[in-house]
């Protein structure tokens, strides 16, 4: 395989896998989330590198499955999916486009700056429905590892907040 062929294959694979959606937040792709770390050609084969959001994220098997399916649909055989833990995933890797899509989906996007380490104090989170900052946390844990449950005190709607991590 010439270097030009390898690059063409890499771009074709990237195009195929970057549209794979997160099974639990289907409005986001794995590229939006920052879960997709790399697409490379190794010994003539496609190697896709992904990283979990949380250590116990149950979606990783499904994401790997979907990547294999996407490569197959693009006519690319023999692809490998590799999972790495380092560098540790952070919500700072989420794309601007991903943040906009989340907000439109009704989920308040994570604040920049990663997870906080202070023991006490509360975060300020904007309501994805009406934009008000007059909100409060209902539960620090939500329907998936990466979300918390909040409520807007102005429009009274509950909403998910994508936790900073």
């Amino acid at each position: 395989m010439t270097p030009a062929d390898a690059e063409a294959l890499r771009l074709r694979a990237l195009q195929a896998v970057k549209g794979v959606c997160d099974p639990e937040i289907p409005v986001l792709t794995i590229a939006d989330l920052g879960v997709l770390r790399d697409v490379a050609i190794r010994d003539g084969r496609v190697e896709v590198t992904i990283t979990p959001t949380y250590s116990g994220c149950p979606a990783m098997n499904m994401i790997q499955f979907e990547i294999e399916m996407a490569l197959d649909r693009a006519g690319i055989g023999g692809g490998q999916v590799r999972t790495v833990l380092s560098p540790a995933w952070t919500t700072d890797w989420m794309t601007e486009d991903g943040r906009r899509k989340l907000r439109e989906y009704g989920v308040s996007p994570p604040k920049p700056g990663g997870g906080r380490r202070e023991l006490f104090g509360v975060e300020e989170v904007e309501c994805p429905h009406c934009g008000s900052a007059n909100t409060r946390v209902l539960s620090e844990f939500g329907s998936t590892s990466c979300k918390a449950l909040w409520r807007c005190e102005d429009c009274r709607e509950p909403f998910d907040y994508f936790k900073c991590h």
Partner: protein
Amino acid sequence: MATTSIQVNETPLVLYLLRRADDALILGHRLSEWIGLGPILEEEMALGNIGLDLIGQARSLYAYAAEAEAAGNDEDTFAYLRDAPQYRNLLLAEQPNGDFGQTMVRQLFYSAFADPYWRAMTASGDATLAAVAAKSEKESAYHLRHSSEWVIRLGDGTQESHARVQEAVDVLWPYTGEMFECDAAERTLADGRTVIDPAPLRDAWDGTIGAVLSRATLTLPQNGWMQSGGRTGRHSEHLGHLLSTMQHVQRTYPGAAW
């Protein structure tokens, strides 16, 4: 998979990995026992989520232990085919859930240690351990904040909640010293910068626990005597009962899968 227990060749690194993996698995399993019994829906989700993080951490550590031992064992055989004396977890992790307050105090005691521990371990000279640590420290910081808030709310709550959570603090206190121990096997790894000696983290832990208990209007126990033995397989009666539930399916139907 056979039903008989496996034998593990516990080199210092394998032993270290099993200790930390067992802490996370046993505490994660304890939290999973709350599923269907949580006091409110939000807390049921929280306990399940924290348990999931811990079991995820355990899986990464067991996978590395399997690679380091290279004797054909894997995550599943480590979890399902070792008896209580082969488990290396902290006694604190296996203590029963008690009421919700006791579960939160146990979580606070563990997370106030795990948080600075994994942050310090991100500097490990072992790339795999540093990677596991970088994920675990983020998760632990969140667990610590959550359990602190509950201990404060319950301690500074009603007479009943205050009394119950104070009792939980007193009951669990003698199991907290074990976290800071460093035996010869772990010392070897610490000298090679693979792991850190946990003893110097005592000040940070005391500071966190002191601040939380003070806000919670709870009294810090003055008893300095500490129980230990989990790291060498001397466990309380509770672990065997936990394992009999957790291992039941694999012991009865070897290799069962779905």
